């Protein structure tokens, strides 16, 4: 560790990291464009200038992303000289920037806006027309490039070279005619294009899917875990008007996904906004399913399960540890063992993040003793029983193509069950709506939090299962 003085405070820092990282770790935010902790430092945007004095020499203004840390270095990020240098740099960056913030999707989370505000660069002095370049360059299925907004930090170029190892982007042209493009103007490929929109500090690279969808300051952003594979990337689920999930973005998790996530996970949120969402109970009456309250449906479920008979208990791979424990206990009361439907491996496995296994909590469920069974085997177990409990997000989707026989079904899922033997349908939350624990492919425990509040009537699944279990036990005690 190396001792330096940062804004008058003596601190110990790791000299192998760039100075800007040491500042950040100690709560001093230095403006940056080309610097990104997940990419090699470039040192070209020149915005991260701070004042540094080494060995008692007079202070000079240097870029903090490329300056090695030395013992006894005195760093000051807030001197008038440092501020003036950064302000001047912003003046240059804004010279050709179109300032189309009112129609820019990045507005509100754009660091060109933030730093201009912070450094007081509020007035443009250029008299010349601004640079005219391609405003809507289609870079494939995911990304749209606005070359006019680009400040040429080259984060995207380095991301493609260093992270995805697909060097498809480049800067072309010279001097003030430099622009970002793809080689041969071919579309981008791969499952990691969405990250480009996250690392772009301005609105040059934007997601097609999010284009003109929402103002970012209207989004409520809460952390959660991606449920599309067993990697379990940390995500921020961003919700408009407490209702509609508009965007999923990765959150930094040093041990799991770092700064990145795949496009499969990023864009798998339309089902969260499903209008056919089950928000109350459904109970069978003759050939019909009648709407009722969750509470009444739960009472009816206890009656159905109280009739006795051979039971099957099937969960989904999206169950949290807490829900799986409740389900296992319920299965014990019904004289059976809980299993979970194991989705088949897909073709998306890669070297970066995606594991190719769509079961996000496989590892946790197996540790709790739930056996992974194929959809066909789970359906056969249900068909061979008189009673069955199907519980968890996507459990019904997993069994949709299977013949479930004539067993009396009690289901807990985000939607209704339309199988022949259905007796009671109860609502369950999506994983972004619940508190709980998942174990990822490497056995790392990650917490689910309520990123979006479940609709009224949707009880936490572990609570519903415990209530049902208690009702059965009560009925058993009375009998």
């Amino acid at each position, binding site marked *: 560790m190396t001792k330096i003085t940062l804004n008058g405070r003596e601190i110990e820092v790791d000299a192998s990291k760039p100075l800007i990282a040491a500042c950040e770790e100690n709560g001093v935010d230095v403006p940056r464009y080309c610097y990104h902790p997940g990419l090699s430092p*470039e*040192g*070209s*945007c*020149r*915005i991260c*200038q701070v004042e540094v004095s080494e060995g008692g020499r007079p202070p*000079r*203004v240097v*870029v903090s992303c*490329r300056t*090695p840390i030395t013992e006894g270095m005195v760093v000051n990020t807030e001197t008038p000289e440092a501020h003036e*240098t950064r302000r*001047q*740099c912003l*003046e*240059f*960056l804004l*010279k*050709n920037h179109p300032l189309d913030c009112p129609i820019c999707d990045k507005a509100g989370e754009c660091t060109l806006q933030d730093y201009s505000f912070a450094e007081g660069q509020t007035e443009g*002095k*250029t*008299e*010349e027309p601004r640079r005219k370049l391609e405003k809507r360059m289609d870079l494939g299925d995911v990304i749209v490039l606005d070359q006019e907004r680009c*400040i*040429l930090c080259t984060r995207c170029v380095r991301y493609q070279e260093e992270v995805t190892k697909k060097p498809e982007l480049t*800067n072309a*042209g*010279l*001097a*003030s*005619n*430099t622009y970002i493009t793809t080689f041969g103007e071919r579309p981008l490929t791969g499952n990691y294009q969405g990250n480009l929109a996250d690392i772009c500090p301005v609105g040059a690279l934007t997601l097609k899917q999010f284009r003109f969808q929402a103002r970012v300051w209207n989004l409520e952003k809460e952390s959660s875990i991606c449920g599309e594979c067993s990697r379990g990337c940390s995500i921020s689920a961003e919700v408009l008007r407490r209702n509609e999930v508009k965007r999923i973005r990765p959150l930094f998790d040093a041990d799991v996904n770092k700064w990145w996530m795949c496009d499969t996970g990023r864009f798998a949120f339309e089902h969260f906004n499903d209008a056919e969402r089950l928000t109350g109970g459904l109970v069978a009456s003759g050939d019909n399913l009648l709407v009722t309250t969750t509470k009444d449906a739960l009472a009816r479920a206890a009656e159905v399960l109280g009739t006795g008979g051979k039971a099957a208990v099937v969960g989904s791979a999206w169950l949290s540890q807490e829900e799986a424990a409740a389900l296992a206990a319920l299965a014990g009361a019904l004289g059976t063992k809980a299993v979970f439907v194991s989705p088949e491996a897909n073709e998306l496995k890669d070297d970066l993040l995606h594991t190719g296994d769509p079961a996000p909590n496989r590892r946790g469920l197996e540790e709790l003793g739930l056996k992974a069974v194929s959809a066909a085997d789970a359906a056969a177990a249900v068909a061979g029983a008189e009673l069955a409990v199907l519980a968890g997000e996507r459990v019904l989707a997993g069994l949709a193509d299977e013949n479930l026989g004539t067993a009396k079904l009690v289901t807990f899922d985000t939607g209704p069950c339309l199988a022949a033997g259905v007796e009671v349908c109860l609502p369950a939350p999506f994983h972004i709506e619940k508190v709980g624990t998942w174990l990822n492919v490497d056995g790392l425990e990650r917490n689910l939090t309520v990123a979006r509040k479940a609709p009224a009537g949707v009880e936490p699944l572990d609570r519903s299962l415990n209530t049902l279990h208690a009702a059965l036990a009560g009925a058993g005690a009375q009998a």
Partner: protein
Amino acid sequence: MSGFETYLMSRMAREDSHTLEGYKAQGGYATLERVLKDMQPSEVTEIVKASGLRGRGGAGFPTGLKWTFMPDASKDPRDRYLAINGDESEPGTCKDRVILDEDPHGLIEGVLMACYAMGCAASYIYIRGEYRHQYRRTEAAIAEARAAGLIGKNILGSGFDCEIYMHMGAGAYICGEETGMMESLEGKRGHPRPKPPFPAGFGLWGQPTTVNNVETIFNVPFIVERGAEWHRSMGTEKSPGNILVGISGNVKRPGVYEAPLGISAKTLLESPDFAGGLHDGRKLKAWFTGGSSTGMVPGSTIDTPMDHDGMQSIGAMLGTAAMIMIDDSQCVVRAMEVVARFYDHESCGQCSQCREGTQWLHQIFRRIEQGKGLPQDVDMLTAIASGMAPGKTICALSDAAAIPANQMVKHFRAELEEHIQSGGCRINHTGNFARGASAPTEVHA
């Protein structure tokens, strides 16, 4: 020419000076043979160090000292390289061209000596894209030298191996910046690298590398042959030796001349041995001291010694000693517009200040020259230049663009203001002084 000894251009009078035969007939490669036979590598470095030779690429860094920055070969066994900068693109500069054209073997001998001194097994000569003829001349000379056993394995039976490769640029000024040149040699875009790390530790392909200018290395065989004392007997104490001076602009005899450092710029301009003065009846209005990056100074400063200190005393730089003379028939604002356009075109586009600033300066100078200048423009030029330099960017191109702009405001503010007030340029520019983005004709009516 009288009054001083010449050596740099001494061999070039012969018709076949560029051939091995012509070179050997004038004593070529004899010193190399002696060096390889009788001298230790460190002795070569010592002579160059003692000679006080300063780099001729513009910065004037002591060459011998630069060579000692290479890591100790016993502790750092990595391959090491010598890269020769022949990307001579500074406006006004054409000295390396003469060497590559007329005396390529002199350069090759210097390269071999420098490689021997620093333990480099390979050297790269980078030549600007427009120098096709010079490239072919040098290429032919290398082929001749290789056939004669002067390049390759076991040179002259000494056991010393050295390869020389050539590389042609594609016309970008920025590839003359040493790290930009290394990127270009590696096959990448010529984007200068941030320093540190410096080339001596992390150069070509990450190996220790020394980058020297063509003229610098061309000096080495003379110094090794005749000794450090001899070299110090010419020029000035701090800037010893002779230098190739390029004189262009409104002079009678533009060209490349050899002169000792410290000679008065006035002599270079007026002596019949050199440029022969301005055209009759003209007065010197302004001059660039050493290429466009050094900026324009008023003609009244012409009686100044051409060396690093002398040029500093008038707020300019020696640069590549490429003097551009501008007489009173010319417009300095127009000249500055051309210079600003050059930097706007040649910035690599990495650093924000340089990419946008060079364009901005060009736009303002163009506007002033066209008669569309605004009263606040002159101060805006200073503000832009102060945002671009000094040392605010990865390489010195930003400084090179900011310095002439600053010099312009400092020395010729009145001309700028006159252009702004009177709505354009008084001087009727005939001839194709500035192509492309030049001013519309009505402004010059």
